[in-house]
């Protein structure tokens, strides 16, 4: 009987446990939580910045949700509760600025792209132009995903768009998906941000630089999202990213904003 009661109560207990996540039971100085939606390419740098910000602000927890900027923008337009949005392209920040609206928009970093190949380099790729060689298994982020759009711009700039896109075997949901397929050795090559080649994957992938003449510079805007429940703290975090957080971004390989 007692077990039956526990079983019956379980869903409610589970629900309660979930709903309490945002409001911890022991009130410290003052518990505050910021939710930051960030482009997948910001994963490592933002987590480092978040840890530093938390260490400096007692009782503040930063929750990150990383993904493709287009998907995050879409979530915001569907009413996802968030305080800040950091996009890998102006395009998706523009979309969010239109609906649901943003404040304090500022560019905080720039990034370049690079070709990556597995360390074994099965297709023998040594330059961007090699992506057009027949039989190369190329993986890019999907169209609409900033990294995917930038990569297609680069192929266009290099004049190898048609041949290279004929080699495309997968449109990944975000740039980290591209990196994963290359690191796993499934794809012969991919195009990712310079900052994606982190120490974690350096043993599995080799970066082949893209000449500046054809490379694209990605600009990263950040803004406080309309409807933020703690806009003051959100602005503090944004200023932190624009100020002290820059060293983490530089360490990860990002360029300063123009």
């Amino acid at each position, binding site marked *: 009987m007692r077990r039956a009661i526990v079983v019956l109560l379980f869903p409610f207990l589970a629900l309660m446990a979930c709903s309490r996540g945002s409001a911890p039971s022991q009130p410290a100085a003052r518990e505050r939580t910021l939710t930051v939606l960030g482009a997948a390419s910001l994963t490592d740098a933002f987590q480092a910045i978040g840890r530093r910000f938390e260490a400096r602000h007692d009782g503040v927890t930063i929750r990150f949700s990383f993904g*493709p900027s287009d*998907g995050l923008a*879409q979530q915001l337009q569907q009413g996802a509760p968030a305080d800040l949005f950091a996009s890998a392209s102006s395009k998706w920040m523009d979309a969010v600025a239109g609906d649901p609206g943003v404040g304090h928009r500022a560019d905080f970093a720039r990034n370049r792209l690079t070709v990556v190949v*597995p360390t074994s380099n099965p297709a023998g790729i040594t330059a961007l132009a090699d992506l057009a060689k027949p039989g190369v298994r190329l993986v890019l982020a999907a169209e609409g995903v900033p990294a995917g759009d930038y990569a297609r711009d680069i192929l266009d700039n290099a004049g190898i768009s048609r041949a290279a896109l004929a080699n495309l075997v*997968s*449109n990944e949901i975000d740039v980290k998906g591209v990196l994963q397929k290359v690191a796993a050795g*499934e794809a012969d090559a991919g195009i990712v941000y310079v900052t994606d080649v982190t120490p974690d994957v350096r043993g599995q992938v080799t970066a082949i630089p893209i000449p500046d003449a054809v490379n694209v510079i990605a600009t990263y805007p950040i803004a406080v999202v309309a409807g933020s429940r703690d806009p003051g703290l959100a602005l503090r975090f944004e200023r932190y990213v624009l100020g002290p957080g820059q060293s983490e971004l530089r360490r990860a390989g990002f360029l300063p904003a123009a």
Partner: protein
Amino acid sequence: MRERSGAAETHGHAGRARRSAPAPAALLALPALAFVLVPLAGLAVKAPWSRAGSALSRSGAWTALGVSLEVTLGATALSLLVALPAAWALARVPFPGRRVVRALIVLPIVLPPVVAGVALLAALGRLGFVGALLGRAGITLAFTTAGAAVAAAFVSAPFLVLALEAGFRGLDTRLEDAARALGASRRYVFQRIVLPQLRPALVAGLVLAWARALGEFGATITFAGNFRGTTQTLPLAVFQALQTDPGAAIVISLGMLAISVGVLVAVGGRLLVR
């Protein structure tokens, strides 16, 4: 399903009396019903009906439907190939460790699909120990429709094994014995006696496995990638559309919902309640 076979037997607990509760007690089913129906109603409410057609074509839904058909039929065939002998062995051969073997075979049912994808990648990927051998034989699975089918088969075959094993166990072996005694070959007995009796279980298992393959997402995107026309199945098309055109994602989801209802009607209506 077990209840049916129990009731079909003329002895045993077929005569057990059932007490009925007063009709208002049926309201107890309401929370579960609402839990399922409310989100589904959300799909219908949010669907951009006026531009459903254009949303479908722009999001590549029709192409994805074709890929899904190819992938799920391939996966179901592959499942059948491995499930039929396994189910027979599990049902008929009392070998030591049978329970462990069965548990291992049905493990993918409870395994998170993305784990299945990572595992497939580790073994069958280009750098995996099986994948390297396949590669030498000129077979690549990553980024191919065949790879998506293998991923789907991995997660759906267990359903077929379970259904077929139950089917084999439900057969009246005396018929087979009689046929054998009358001089029929094993092959003849299997084709003329076992298979016809097995048909309900076979069809139910095939439909369930097919439906599971149709919904496969995690293992597919991890192992086979996402490319329109080769590996982008309906669930992947939904996920990708969700990033840029949620309306299209909802329309495709409604289409898949219709397929699911169809499967339920087919399995529940005709095969189980017969």
